[in-house]
């Protein structure tokens, strides 16, 4: 070993900067995305931390006040009362738990099933691909609201049904996106290099294909969450979702919409909470897209 070799060997390892680290750097420079992320975190903490902030219970009825009363800052009713004299703001926070939870679980379901399904179909190709994607097409062709109505008719109204129904439908888009990505990655040379090295198919999918198609997937996830929240709101708005005394943003908006001529503050408060959440998620998605794929800007 020469002197040069010894000095080289003793040098500390250089830390590489991964594409993810680059993306994080770009994301943190995007002001709109970062402030949206902060706002979104505040909303999440407020909703799930509501039981610990010493607020009223969401089913606490104050008989002294009128129903759909205006905001009353002295008593701490920031958004006034709802039709049953309960604190609308507290109900909004508790409703957020349901809406956000539906959003995240359904998105997780779509992420896991969609990514595995799409990557497998795209990588194996041929008949397997055709068969798997026809299943997706068939599920796609079932009208969603009709599907939910059938479920509620058969099993009765229950919030778990909403999770199942939304989860069962939302992975279809994800599977298509991942399949498209996989097909474009499959022909790249580093996949061929892995095949030539004797790497198993499953390992090629998990180590080479999935990490390389995560960029669009991450972006799509941030767009799926608001979408699912909207779907849940829609179902609850139609009266098939969350049941009293529980609430979700959909039911609250729906109730407030009926009385918006006599109590406009109710619809403004509930509606803007929903809108702010959805907008911030969309901004986060935009920021991620720009950060992960700077060429598209």
């Amino acid at each position, binding site marked *: 070993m020469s002197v040069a070799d010894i000095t080289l060997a003793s*040098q500390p*390892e250089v830390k590489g900067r991964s594409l993810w680290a680059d993306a994080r750097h770009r994301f943190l420079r995007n002001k709109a995305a970062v402030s949206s992320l902060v706002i979104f975190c505040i909303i999440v903490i407020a909703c799930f931390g509501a039981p610990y902030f010493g607020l009223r219970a969401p089913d606490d009825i104050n008989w002294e006040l009128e129903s759909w009363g205006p905001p009353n800052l002295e008593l701490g009713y920031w958004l006034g009362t709802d039709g049953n004299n309960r604190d609308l703001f507290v109900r909004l926070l508790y409703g957020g738990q349901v809406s956000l939870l539906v959003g995240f679980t359904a998105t997780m379901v779509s992420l896991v099933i969609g990514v595995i399904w799409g990557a497998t179909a795209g990588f194996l190709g041929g008949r397997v691909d055709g068969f798997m994607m026809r299943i997706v097409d068939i599920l796609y062709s079932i009208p969603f609201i009709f599907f939910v109505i059938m479920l509620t008719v058969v099993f009765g109204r229950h919030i778990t049904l909403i999770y199942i129904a939304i989860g069962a439908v939302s992975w279809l888009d994800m599977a298509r996106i991942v399949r498209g990505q996989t097909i474009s990655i499959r022909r790249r040379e580093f996949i*061929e290099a892995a095949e030539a090295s*004797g790497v198993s198919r499953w*390992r090629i999918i998990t180590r080479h294909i999935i990490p390389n198609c995560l960029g669009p997937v991450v972006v799509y996830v941030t767009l799926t969450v608001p979408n699912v929240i909207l779907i849940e709101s829609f179902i609850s708005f139609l009266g098939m979702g969350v049941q009293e005394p529980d609430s979700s943003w959909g039911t609250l908006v729906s109730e407030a919409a009926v009385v918006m001529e006599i109590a406009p503050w109710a619809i403004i408060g509930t509606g803007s909470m929903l809108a702010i959440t959805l907008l911030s998620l969309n901004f986060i998605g935009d920021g991620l897209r720009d950060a992960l794929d700077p060429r598209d800007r």
Partner: protein
Amino acid sequence: MSPAPLLSVQDLKVHFDVTRKRLFGGTPAIVKAVDGVTFDLKPGETLGLVGESGCGKSTLGRAVLRLLPATAGRVVWLGEDLHSLDHAEMQQKRRDMQIIFQDPLASLNPRMTVGQIIAEPLSVFNPDLSGTEVKNRVRQMMAKVGLLPNQINRYPHEFSGGQAQRIGIARAMINNPRMIVCDEPVSALDVSIQAQIVNLLMDLQHEMGMSLIFISHNLSVVRHISHRVMVLYLGKVMEIADRDSIYANPLHPYTQALNSAVPIPDPDLERQKDRIVLKGDLPSPLNPPSGCPFRTRCPRATEICAQIMPDLLPAGPTHHVACHHAGPRER
């Protein structure tokens, strides 16, 4: 008696069905990318594979490794036909055969560190190896191919083309394979880097003793590295011979034309050079000429060339040529 061949390719054919599928039939179309290629590869030998773009060089290299299915023929590796093995048996054989690609950066997974990339073939075949042992072997290999071992945690996009190709070479060599297919490993690189990479390959071959199939359209590079050279045209072997005899005494008119196109690094000689300029383009592989595929551009073509494809016949102890009118170039 020469040593037993490591690899014996016998009448290998790789055809692609490119028929445009329509509702009612459609005209059948088949590209014969590799059409009846036969050659042997001895241990420790370098076989240069030359020809124009689209003549089937890369397809042949991939079919030898069974990265593409063969339509007909055999690829015999140490007595076993690779294309008749099942998937699991083939995976085992891959320990001894590797490939280096043309585009160095595209052949490296952008989400993995250099260490993970180089270690992958190693850990596939040695799953019990401890993390530190793998890391040590990777660092040794990196030093061997001229990379700084302390860069083990870097990502491919942080390297230049030449360095990326060194990573590709390190990945190919880590399992100490017996054969490496080099698919135009230097044609995407700067000229000064090309020489470094070719010399690195030769040094490593000298040290580790593997065989190389070196695919290139750069005749000078092939001359530098190869022991034997095979000339392909539209999927068929035109001429195969020892390096010296094919450069000094090419017998096939196509080889002669290729040879005359090699630039000479001396302007005076270059100007005097008597260059054979081939007419026309490479014919469409969808609709190759009858008989000898080269006849449409061949200065010596006669009637028989349009009718019968010449066999690859011996023209010397180590020299085979497929031409009805084979012979030295007339001055």
